């Protein structure tokens, strides 16, 4: 009986946090997250997006797991893309400035004027 109570108490936090994710099998790539979804919702969404059921997996996640998934699949890639994007812009700007024969100050003033 005591163990049943322990089991019941252990299930409480799980019930309170019903967040679910759908990830790609093998890679673990995040496809979708929902904070309160009923089971099966994310699988249906994945299939509607063109995934085969065997390719994806839906499961519950804890808050900590979700934080880690966000960092891995959303924030870190976005930061990396932003760095690449900024570098590309700077590279393009340098080429244009050289073609125009402007100093750095003049080029900044041109950019401000075009805003």
């Amino acid at each position, binding site marked *: 009986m005591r163990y049943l109570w322990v089991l019941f108490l252990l299930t409480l936090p799980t019930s309170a946090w019903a967040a679910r994710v759908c990830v790609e099998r093998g890679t673990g790539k*995040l496809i979708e997250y*929902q*904070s309160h979804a*009923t089971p099966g919702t994310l699988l*249906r*969404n994945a299939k509607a997006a*063109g995934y085969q059921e065997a390719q994806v997996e839906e499961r519950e996640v804890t808050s900590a797991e979700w934080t880690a998934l966000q960092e891995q699949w959303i924030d870190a890639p976005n930061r990396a*893309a932003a760095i690449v994007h900024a570098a590309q812009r700077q590279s393009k700007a340098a080429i244009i400035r050289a073609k125009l024969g402007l100093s750095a100050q003049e080029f900044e003033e041109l950019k401000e004027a075009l*805003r």
Partner: protein
Amino acid sequence: MFTICHQLKIFYSVLVLIAVKMMDNFSRLKISSEFRFHYQSVFKYELVSLSSLLLIGLPVNSFAAAPSRTCTYVTGQVISPSCVSENEDNMFSYLQAGVDTYAAGTVNAAAIADGSVASAEIATNTITPADISGSPVDDSVFVADSASAGTWRTLTNCTDTGGNHLNYTQSTNLFSCGTSNNTNMFVGNTTRDTSLASGTQAITGVGFTPRACVFLAEISATQQASWGVATAGASNALFSNGLSVADTYSDDQTSAIYLRQAATINAYADVDSFDSDGFTLGWTRDDPGKAGIARLQYLCIR
């Protein structure tokens, strides 16, 4: 023992003596119509004495002890007149102070005239719900509106069918109709991989059929952000246009969410349907070059 009763007797005796003397002086002067009462020094002593005694007597009279029988009458024995007057004095003094408690059932509705008791005369917590005429009806509120000075009104669209009840949460001062408190709003989060082709995304777990939703969306480390609303008949999204024209915002009146990666590279969504446990978004991706996982927050209103 010198009791309050004896004190009162002495007090009233002195009071009567002064009054008699005052009336005697008054009649002897044969007052004319031009007579100025307060100029007559002969009355000043009596007036001052009378006023002082009245003021001194006030605290005594306001001390409303319950009436008690000083003398008891025994069967077969002659009743002394002084005993009768003592008992009467006890009752008289008690009634003069005012009766402040009514026994249960001694005052009925007919005995209280309309307007005879002002609201200021009813202390806080004097009246409990059980004291209000007419029992509170289930799922009803007592309201004073333009059609009534105050009556019980039942919320006809909040019947007990399906376990509904009219709920009130004191901490938020909100009324709601449902099986539990605070089911009028719901906040949740989801994501959308905007690189996915156009399609639907069902959101569940809301707990009711929303009538309107508010959406906040963004793709981190970019200038892509959106603020939108959707109802069954209309939607509108304000969004960052910074990746198309620097430092600008724009809007789209057919979408609730709009994420602009470039002028012609967008992912946007409207609510296709409001469902029994949430809603379904219909996503459009207008260019395969769209990228990034968007984080969405939604507030659904019942």
